[in-house]
């Protein structure tokens, strides 16, 4: 089926308007919470820790008043893949993975199948971890507009400029990237349509699919990149014409101010995450 509409579906900010506590938090706080929690999640492999983390992430979701079903709906297409992967890990990984501080016991061995306590833990923990991060990432993008997200990012990164790190520049790169996604998506749609009009068969079938698709890809990617470079040349001139010379002398309009809730959320999550990391090897199970 030839349908080019999918390009219009690209929405980077899946912002859902709302007035919950989470919506109102300062974007810098939300990004920080995301970072702290991600660190905590990444370093915890025990059952208990991951159950605690999941409960915390779930409570964030409840606070945001975003329907849980909405967040989970994004996973649906990948579900069969996730299940197959989990079963493979469960049955065949055996000793491939041993969580810190535990000893892997064999639970079942039958031909190729080798189930150990380690692989069970791996499957359970990586599924929990996936859910935790999914909740966090969705929360961030569902409760924050793209512009708040980029301004928040810039506000957080800018102080690094003072010690010689390219914080401001990094934020600017991110903002430019986000700005050009819809523009380039539109351009890509036109390129695809123009080629389809000239008889290109997008989504070729048959044994030579790989070669055909690669050729097709060249025909799409080359004009897309050329267009992007051309736009970049324009933007470079426009930025220079507007006196851009890097972040050092710039000022920034004040956009955010911490409220009490922001301080509380920030400190609580920071302490919690630090504790989770500190005690990661001392969980009873």
């Amino acid at each position: 089926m030839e349908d080019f509409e999918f390009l219009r579906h690209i929405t980077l900010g899946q912002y859902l308007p709302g007035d919950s506590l989470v919506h109102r938090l300062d974007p810098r706080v939300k990004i920080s919470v995301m970072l702290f929690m991600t660190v905590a999640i990444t370093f915890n492999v025990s059952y208990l820790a991951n159950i605690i983390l999941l409960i915390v992430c779930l409570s964030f979701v409840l606070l945001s008043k975003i329907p849980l079903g909405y967040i989970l709906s994004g996973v649906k297409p990948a579900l069969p893949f996730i299940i197959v992967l989990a079963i493979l890990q469960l049955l065949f990984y055996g000793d491939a993975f041993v969580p810190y501080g535990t000893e892997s016991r064999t639970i079942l061995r039958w031909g190729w199948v080798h189930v150990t306590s380690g692989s069970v833990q791996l499957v359970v923990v990586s599924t929990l971890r996936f859910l935790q991060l999914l909740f966090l990432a969705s929360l961030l993008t569902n409760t924050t507009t793209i512009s708040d997200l980029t301004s928040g990012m810039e506000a957080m990164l800018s102080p690094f400029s003072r010690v010689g790190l390219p914080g401001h520049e990094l934020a600017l790169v991110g903002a430019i990237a986000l700005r050009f996604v819809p523009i380039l998506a539109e351009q890509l749609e036109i390129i695809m349509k123009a080629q389809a009009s000239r008889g290109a068969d997008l989504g070729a079938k048959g044994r030579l699919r790989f070669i055909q698709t690669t050729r097709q890809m060249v025909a799409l990617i080359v004009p897309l990149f050329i267009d992007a470079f051309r736009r970049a040349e324009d933007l470079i001139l426009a930025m220079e014409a507007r006196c851009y010379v890097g972040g050092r002398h710039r000022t920034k309009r004040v956009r955010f101010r911490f409220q009490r809730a922001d301080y509380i959320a920030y400190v609580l999550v920071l302490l919690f995450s630090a504790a989770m990391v500190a005690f990661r090897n001392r969980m009873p199970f």
Partner: protein
Amino acid sequence: MEQKGFTVRRIVIAGVLSAIAILLGATRLGFIPVPTAAGNATIMHVPAIIGGIMEGWVVGGIIGFIFGIFSFLQATIPLFKDPLVAIFPRIFIGITAYFTYVGLKRFNEYVALIVAAAVGTLTNTVLVLTMAVVRGYMAPGVALGVGITHGIPEIIVACILVVAVVAAWKRVETGRGRSKV
């Protein structure tokens, strides 16, 4: 000739190429079906390679980093919902591509482009799979299998695309060719 630090040019090129990486990731276009069980080869790392080659390792690294963040945020499978798998390895794609390109450029521009594309792609494949093994999502044997079935077609595609794009933009007359007609 090499300017240091962040010029306006580097910031903007990094921005638009990151946009392409995000775009390729957000559509099914970033995937090319390969004739193996593995399913799809990806070309989402190509912008990082091209950015590295054209504007230096910093630009290449940033594009990879931003591409990594997006594949992390948008991931719907556990493997890429892990920042150590999704983000960390991507930073190096453009960096290795750049140094390969610079090292070989004085011998032959054309060859340098091809090898840089191959090295950048390999960086992605090897590091992602290594991290996947380290973080316990894959057994080493499986990772090796995926590496071969994915890696080879990905390298081929990346080489073709990188040469086509860079040649078209720099208007280098690669080789002496003529039209088929």
